């Protein structure tokens, strides 16, 4: 077992929140089409409140601190907060779009000893990246930031979220990361908004694109192994925990709300009302999350993918049941192995809504205004 896993196992046993993601703000200078956040400020924590929270988190045993947003540099007190975090010897990872990171900021980040910086790069083509961020010139600025940070010797990760707009570009982004001596990661999942709005899921790539990604040796390593039929579910698997959310990790919003994870918006307390460590130890919601094993999941415990699925409990929660399946992960398991999950099988077996197909066909036959694209794959045209 690696040292990192050993420490995680110890933290789990001792009920210590080893990792926390703290979002400083939901405000942002970009307006990404797939973003799950509401960018208005509804009363962010003050500098003093955040410093106090950092002190509490250090005392509670938090080691890995991911500072994210929104865009973290939209906060004028960002460096003051970061200084305090480093004074309390957190291992700090940053997530940013990099637009506000120039030479001076990169040098300051190195001085403060941040562990790594993750920057979102959606495409190597400005017309694609900038259309996703809705900010002209953003690709150039983000790439410049990667360069400035690398010149300082900082670890940089280029994060590529795969969606319909940029599905063809990830290979080029990977090459760009190699050229800039940055790490490349890719996430093929667009997640629902934190308020539960699922409309942005339309941006997710289809099965064909997922299949192609999962068979790219450069991304997954041994394709045969990665795409192999799932191993049988054993007793140990049934007692396994879904992920670290609520077990050794949690998320704190700019308003002080504590959730098991940024993708698992189950309100579990607020640090403006209750001490962080008391929420961590005593929140009924976190306690409930901690009780859930694969055995408690009616559909997933019966599914052949049970032992190997990447099921996200947060996505399951956003789908309506934190003990239920996460359909997006079922789709990934299907794209990987060609074997449908129990959840997908039951969805296929369920009766279809009587009118849905006919309605789309009727609408598609309606005259399309000249200014709209005449393509059946464009939802705007179909709804016109």
């Amino acid at each position, binding site marked *: 077992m690696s040292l990192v896993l050993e*420490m995680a196992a110890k933290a789990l046993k001792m009920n210590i929140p080893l990792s926390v993601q703290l979002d400083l703000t939901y405000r942002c200078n970009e307006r990404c089409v797939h973003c799950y956040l509401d960018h208005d400020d509804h009363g962010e924590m003050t500098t003093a409140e955040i410093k106090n929270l950092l002190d509490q988190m250090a005392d509670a045993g938090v*080691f890995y601190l991911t500072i994210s947003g929104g865009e973290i540099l939209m906060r004028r007190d960002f460096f003051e907060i970061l200084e305090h975090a480093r004074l309390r010897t957190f*291992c700090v990872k940053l997530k940013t779009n990099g637009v506000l990171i120039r030479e001076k900021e990169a040098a300051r980040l190195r001085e403060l000893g941040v*562990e790594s910086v993750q920057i979102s790069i959606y495409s190597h083509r400005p017309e694609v990246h900038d259309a996703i961020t809705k900010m002209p010139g953003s690709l150039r600025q983000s790439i410049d930031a990667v360069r400035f940070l690398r010149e300082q010797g900082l670890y940089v990760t280029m994060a590529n979220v795969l969606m319909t707009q940029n599905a063809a570009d990830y290979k080029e982004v990977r090459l760009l990361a190699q050229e800039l001596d940055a790490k490349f990661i890719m996430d093929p999942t667009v997640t629902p908004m934190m308020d539960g709005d699922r409309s942005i899921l339309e941006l997710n790539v289809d099965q064909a694109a997922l299949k192609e990604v999962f068979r790219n040796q450069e991304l997954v390593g041994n394709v045969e192994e990665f795409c192999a039929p799932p191993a049988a579910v054993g007793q140990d698997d049934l007692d396994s925990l879904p992920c670290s959310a609520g077990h050794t990790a949690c998320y704190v919003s700019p308003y002080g709300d504590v959730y098991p994870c940024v993708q698992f918006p189950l309100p579990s307390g607020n640090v403006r009302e209750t001490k962080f460590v008391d929420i961590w130890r005593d929140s009924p919601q976190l306690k409930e999350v901690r009780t859930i094993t694969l055995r408690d999941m009616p559909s997933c415990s019966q599914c052949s993918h049970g032992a190997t699925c990447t099921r996200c409990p947060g996505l399951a929660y956003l789908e309506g049941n934190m003990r239920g399946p996460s359909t997006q992960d079922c789709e990934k398991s299907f794209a990987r192995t060609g074997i449908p999950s129990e959840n997908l099988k039951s969805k296929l077996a369920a009766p279809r809504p009587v009118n849905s197909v006919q309605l789309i066909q009727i609408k598609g036959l309606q005259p399309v205004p000249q200014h709209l694209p005449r393509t059946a794959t464009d939802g705007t045209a179909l709804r016109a």
Partner: protein
Amino acid sequence: MNTSCYVVRSNAIAARALGDETMVMSATNSTLFTLNEVATTIWEAADGVTPLDEIITNKICAQYEVEQDAALKDAQALIEELAVHGLVLVSDAPIAKAGRASKASA
């Protein structure tokens, strides 16, 4: 290494106690280390103004059944290892908090 040298924890680290151990990560190369209970005691006492032999006498020999010479030898090996990875700074003179990196050698 001089047994009455001064040792201070580097600024370029991340660290946190986990039970009776301490996790320490180098900010320069992200390598993770763990210190056991005794090493943690030395780590926490490494303030740059208390000589290493004094730390061993007061914090280690006073708490654990160990001979001063043996403890000091082990402590020197530990400090040398930590210094190689840039986790501590070592000096023959007390290390002031401000500007300590320029006065001491890793």
